[in-house]
């Protein structure tokens, strides 16, 4: 609905979720094992989607596309890719 008081301007503003809730694209879900994780931040630096929290090493599943780069690059193997259930 267009607002009557605010004129419509075709300008985009920086916001999360510009491509929608991209978590629904995911076929495999990365799961971090906090017992093995050494918090080296390699997953954080290579994540193309910026969904990994740098200090806590947690994943924002709302936007994670499940590419699996973090699981391949993790030096200790703390991230495993589990199949997404229906």
């Amino acid at each position, binding site marked *: 609905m267009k607002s009557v008081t605010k004129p419509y301007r*075709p300008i*985009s*503003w*920086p*916001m*999360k*979720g*510009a*491509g*929608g*809730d*991209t978590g629904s*694209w*995911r076929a495999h879900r990365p799961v971090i094992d906090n017992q093995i994780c050494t918090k*080296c*931040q*390699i997953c*954080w*630096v*290579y*994540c*193309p*989607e*910026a*969904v990994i929290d*740098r200090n806590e090493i947690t994943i*924002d599943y*709302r*936007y994670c*596309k*499940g*590419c*699996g*780069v973090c*699981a*391949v*690059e993790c030096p200790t193997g703390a991230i495993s*890719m589990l199949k997404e259930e229906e």
Partner: protein
Amino acid sequence: MTTSIKQLPDIEQVLSGNGACGGCPATMALRIVGKALGTNAIMLLTPSCAVASMGMTPRLGYNWPCINICFATAGSSASGITHALEIMREKGRLQGELPTVFSWVGDGGTYDIGFQALSAAAERNDNIIHFCYNNEAYSNTGVQRSGATPRGAFTTTTPAGKRQTKKNMALLMLEHNIPYVATATVAYPGDLYDKVLKARNIPGMKYIEILAPCYLGWQFDMPETVRMSRMAVRSGAWLLWEGENGKISFNHPSSLIISGKKEAAPVDEYLIKQGRFNRLLKGPDAESRIAAIQGDINREIAFMRERAKITV
């Protein structure tokens, strides 16, 4: 000394939930570029995957003012904006530090279609940074051949493998006598961060080329993006170097290959992982074709080694 991962700043300029494919090397590289450039910048985009990644209209996936421009005008548009900013400061409409003007362009907009405008901007030495994220094909339109596609690679317009070699665009830009040229790749984020930070503080035209292995165009498994980028550097198919005022210096680990301290890995493993070279490896003359690609790489390494000795 390269910046380590833990020293990189927290700032995020690529926002979560953008429209890029999962495992996109372009957004991976743009995140690191964003950490170096900061918020005070203006981004120009020619038609490329990066424009599709911006997302849908009320929202924008990048935290910069973005301008979408014509395919051939990356150099000229950036020149116009940087000149306009300087005039605005002269007239007193802008205070403080001027924003960095940078264009984020694919290899089509740099090597082929945008080359004339880019060459002219380099010749004028305008104060811009031109980033080329090189995925070695026109991947946005469904993988067509570009000037950056290497010999033997399958694209939809070269179904039997490309017959010609790629051109050395970064060296071409160095020959324009611009103050700073660099090559980088996504597997070495600290190296890329340092180069962007250095380019930001140099006045004049800067050119940075980033190898971005696109899993759709190169036909490898999605999680292997960073690994493929690392293999390209270790096999010598991609050399990491920077040229400051015409003087070339190589970065780790390409410096080891150039100086002869370490042998470049054979190109076979790098080729086998990529589906785009499958046709080449299945035919009866597979060995001679691999030897041709290895020859291209060896020639490039030998040439760059000799070129780096010229410091005048």
